[in-house]
């Protein structure tokens, strides 16, 4: 049967038409590919507009088109649009193919003649391929109504609560002993100066008590199998050596524990905890965990003070506890694993780690926190002297060619908050050394104004060096901040008591491995890549896996909450649908052709191919097959066909791209 093919070439305004002779290409296709079945070639300003789609639909109905080629943007953008349009007109959607002449032609080439010729070749390839397309039906998969949320910071908390409140079950997995994330470490939040704990802890408590939330703290996801609708996550619940059924969280165990440990995680190295500990008073859940590496009993086989003093019946301390491996079923996954703070020791000229009174932003947050190591007093490293002058260094590790090129987005406001807090609590002179002040959200600029009016000094310049080497008597015993004030064009040396480094945000050190676990990719800066930077910021390229908060890029609390809620809304939408349609791109074996050689068996990473001994053939389980096509390419008998990407389709496309299909007169 000969096909009736319609070719539609999009101008995309001037995006394509500015470089490609769109009209000429459409006419060329109608004329030179006529013998291949092209019955109509049209060009249109915006094919994706409703009028553009109507053109296709009308032609299917009136001209009886059996195949459609749309030459426009990338299929990743609009394939669904045009396939849906075809479906509306009664044509199987998989008989429509897109040819990318924007991302792959007009946007990357400048020579109009070459771009036009390449467009023609691309369309020719598409026409040859689409002839071999087969009508397909999407695979319907039921959606498991449970959701797995990974990361219990504010974004993960928000996502979990939204879904749980809507009546669906959530499993929230957190690596640390408590949920709360970085926000739990902060004292005040900009620009309103709300106390972070006051607004966060009620949400944490809600998560802990919610009947629809299973909270797994001190746990990590080790493996993820399956696909959208039917994920199976393997989670390691680390042994806490505390029996949570009987523990009341009374605190006697950590009171009695003789081993003091510097808390590098929650207190950012500023405070101490015990070997058995709860990171902070409002932790959720309330149960402590044992730090095996520092526990005296685990090191020397004696002590057990915690067990000895535990008042519960039965005793809640169990030194025999083992890691538990749990399997969790989930239809969708939300990743909200947050960020790491830039390690300020990587900039040696700022002296962090060598000069005691240089602090990182997180250390300063802990210092300001009433529940922190100094009970909210802003003091030097000696823990008693209040500073008389402070420099806040902006953009530490951000907007810097040597470290991270991106703007960490939160540091300007964070630094302004620090300036305010220092002035309010100590009356010290505060200098902000900035590159640019960026206050783009609601009420942020007003806060900047406020700090200016309160008497904060602002020096526009990137700090070159922080040193304790005095040149003049006034600098003796001080930290000297060397900076060029670019607004007055002068080098300045500012002697101060304290320096706060407003360190930037970085992707988690293990972001890449975790991404691999969930099948999602990191961008060039290491943050997870969203499906579309503007229109689909919380979905990823992997169906059913969503991202929220700082995993997607640096952002402040309001933005993280927005993303957590957005991801939850996307998941709820999926759960409501009940079933989801998957692309029917799968491999299948023609048993008459299969010789039973079993070459394909070992090639499948999903174990979808099984050898049937009785029939001496291999068979593919379509539920496990992901459609990569490796077995199709390997089958020596050509017995395996890959739907949507068959040998016939690809070979035809090769010939078409090389214009082997043109009649001699047309060459």
């Amino acid at each position, binding site marked *: 049967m000969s096909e009736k093919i319609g070719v539609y070439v999009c101008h995309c305004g001037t995006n394509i038409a500015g470089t490609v002779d769109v009209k000429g290409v459409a006419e060329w296709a109608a004329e030179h590919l006529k013998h291949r079945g092209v019955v109509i070639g049209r060009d249109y300003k915006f094919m994706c507009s409703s009028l553009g789609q109507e053109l296709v639909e009308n032609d299917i109905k009136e001209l009886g088109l059996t195949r459609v080629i749309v030459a426009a943007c990338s299929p990743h953008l609009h394939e669904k649009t045009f396939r849906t349009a075809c479906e509306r007109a009664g044509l199987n959607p998989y008989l429509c193919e897109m040819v990318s002449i924007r991302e792959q032609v007009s946007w990357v080439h*400048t020579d109009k003649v070459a771009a036009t010729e390449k467009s023609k070749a691309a369309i020719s390839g598409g026409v040859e391929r689409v002839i071999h397309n087969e009508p397909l039906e999407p695979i319907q998969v039921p959606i498991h109504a449970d959701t797995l949320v990974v990361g219990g910071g504010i974004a993960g908390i928000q996502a979990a609560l939204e879904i749980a409140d809507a009546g669906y079950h959530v499993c929230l997995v957190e690596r640390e002993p408590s949920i709360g994330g970085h926000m739990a470490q902060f004292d005040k939040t900009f620009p309103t100066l709300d106390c972070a704990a006051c607004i966060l802890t009620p949400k944490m408590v809600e998560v802990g008590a919610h009947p629809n939330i299973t909270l797994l703290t001190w746990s990590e996801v080790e493996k993820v199998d399956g696909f959208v609708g039917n994920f199976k996550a393997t989670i390691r619940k680390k042994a806490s050596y505390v029996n949570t059924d009987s523990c009341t969280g009374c605190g006697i165990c950590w009171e009695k524990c003789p081993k003091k440990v510097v808390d590098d995680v929650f207190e950012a190295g500023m405070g101490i905890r015990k070997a058995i500990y709860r990171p902070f008073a409002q932790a959720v859940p309330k149960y402590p965990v044992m730090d095996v590496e520092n526990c005296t009993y685990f090191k020397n086989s004696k002590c057990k003070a915690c067990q000895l003093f535990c008042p519960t019946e039965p005793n809640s301390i169990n030194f025999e506890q083992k890691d538990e491996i749990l399997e969790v079923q989930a239809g969708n996954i939300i990743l909200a694993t947050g960020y790491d703070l830039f390690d300020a020791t990587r900039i040696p000229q700022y002296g962090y780690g060598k000069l005691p009174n240089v602090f990182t932003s997180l250390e300063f947050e802990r210092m300001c926190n009433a529940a922190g190591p100094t009970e909210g007093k802003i003091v030097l490293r000696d823990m008693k002297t209040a500073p008389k002058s402070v420099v806040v260094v902006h953009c530490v590790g951000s907007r810097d060619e040597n470290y991270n090129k991106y703007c960490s987005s939160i540091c300007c406001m964070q630094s302004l908050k620090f300036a305010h807090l220092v002035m309010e609590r100590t009356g010290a002179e505060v200098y902000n050394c900035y590159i640019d002040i960026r206050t783009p959200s609601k009420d942020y600029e007003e806060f900047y104004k406020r700090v200016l009016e309160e008497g904060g000094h602002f020096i526009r310049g990137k700090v070159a060096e922080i040193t304790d080497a005095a040149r003049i008597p006034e600098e003796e015993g001080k930290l000297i901040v060397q900076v060029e004030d670019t607004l007055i064009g002068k080098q300045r040396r500012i002697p101060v008591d304290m320096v706060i480094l407003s360190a930037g945000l970085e992707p988690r050190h293990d972001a890449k491995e975790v991404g691999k676990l969930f099948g999602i990719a990191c961008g060039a800066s290491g943050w997870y890549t969203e499906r579309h930077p503007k229109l689909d910021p919380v979905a990823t390229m992997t169906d059913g896996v969503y991202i929220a908060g700082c995993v997607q890029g640096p952002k402040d609390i309001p933005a993280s909450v927005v993303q957590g809620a957005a991801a939850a809304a996307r998941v709820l939408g999926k759960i409501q649908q009940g079933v989801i349609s998957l692309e029917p791109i799968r491999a299948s074996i023609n048993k008459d052709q299969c010789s039973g050689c079993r070459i394909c068996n070992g090639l499948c990473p999903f174990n979808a191919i099984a050898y049937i001994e009785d029939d001496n053939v291999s068979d593919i389980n379509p539920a496990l097959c992901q459609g990569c096509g490796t077995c199709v*390419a390997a089958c020596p008998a050509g017995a395996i066909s890959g739907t949507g990407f068959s040998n016939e389709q690809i070979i035809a496309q090769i010939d078409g791209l090389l214009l082997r299909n043109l009649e001699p007169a047309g060459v």
Partner: protein
Amino acid sequence: MSEQFEPTIIGFTCNWCSYRAADLAGTSRMKYAPNVRLIRMMCSGRLDPTFVLRALSSGADGVMITGCHPGECHYIEQNYKALRRFLLLRRVLAGLGIEPERVKLVWASAAEGARFASETTAFVEEIRKLGPLNWGKTDDRQQTMDDVESSVVNRPSSEMEVPA
């Protein structure tokens, strides 16, 4: 002689990384040589070496195979299979008297639009230096192609292993 040789190149991309790298090169308006015409597959593991031979015998002067970086394959490890086939294919090509350099393997992640663009332009220049292939222009060449196809189809499984 004044006219510069413009090679025709077929490029194979995987759906998840390298096609998206090409998309990113586009959205970032990075310019590269217009000689490569792309075919999208789900995975570089889908690449049947006969596709490459078919392209070369049908008029392509070079073939660029692209996929996710090792360890980043959407299908876990199928790009390693593409790598094996690529290495084997280059030996077959050399045996046929065709410069193995006419086939190139490029890893490009979805974030590496710039890499995709620069590797493409570099490959076009390499092929330009090698000159036209002209396979398939004569009948006996076509004969060779048929022989090759049958020999590749009937290859023993042991050849699929990565050469040591």
